[in-house]
């Protein structure tokens, strides 16, 4: 099992992370699923449709990493996904910048897709991170949405 969580201010390079996972899993992984979350220039979450100037992410060093590691352990206990990388940026980001990367390698595509989606759903609800969005209309601390909660809860249902 190999999974790594990185919280960083710096930009990340999808290509080099992919290359790393590909080399580690060579011949064994039949599927690598990569999710990248990016800053959108329109604010729909806060609901006013204003243009986004910045998104600022805050973390609690140590606890944040552990809260994500717990999510990855859950994913690895549910699916055969030996290779996982999560990189989450913190600090001030502007539209079109990369926020988060989740990469999952598995022998088969079903597990890779399911685990990647599971991890993203729980990053929304359980990762110890805070997001402040600044628009021309002011700033708001974002919360995970009701829909996020529904999605996270779905994984707890039998048969999911």
């Amino acid at each position: 099992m190999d999974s790594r969580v990185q919280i960083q201010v710096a930009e990340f390079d999808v290509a080099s992370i992919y290359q790393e996972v590909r080399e580690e899993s060579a011949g064994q992984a039949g599927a690598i699923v990569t999710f990248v979350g990016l800053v959108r220039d329109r604010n729909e979450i806060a609901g006013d449709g204003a243009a986004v100037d910045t998104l600022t992410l805050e973390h609690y060093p140590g606890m944040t990493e552990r809260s994500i590691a717990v999510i990855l352990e859950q994913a690895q206990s549910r699916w055969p996904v030996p290779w996982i990388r999560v990189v989450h940026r913190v600090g001030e980001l502007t539209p079109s910048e990369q926020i988060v990367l989740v990469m999952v390698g598995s022998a088969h595509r079903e597990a890779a897709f399911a685990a990647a989606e599971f991890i993203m759903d729980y990053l929304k609800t359980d990762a110890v991170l805070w997001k402040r969005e600044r628009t021309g209309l002011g700033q708001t601390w974002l919360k995970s949405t009701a829909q996020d909660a529904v999605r996270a809860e779905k994984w707890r249902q039998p048969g999911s």
Partner: protein
Amino acid sequence: MVSVKFFAQLREVTGTEGLQINAADLNGVFVELAKQYPEDVIAQLRGDNVRVAINQELVNGNPALVAGDEVALLPPVTGG
């Protein structure tokens, strides 16, 4: 002395990332904080949606504290 840490909107309303106070348990922390901050700030710090971590583990109730403990007040989280 224990250290108290504030995050996100709680850091903004208190105007600080954290402070050192004397308290023997979690309730004691809030008693001390009430001496330093107005009621509306305390209401936010004690909000239903605020979780408390001691030494980075979530806690409930009124756990005892020892010198050097780190008490963190965590408003609603979201990542991804």
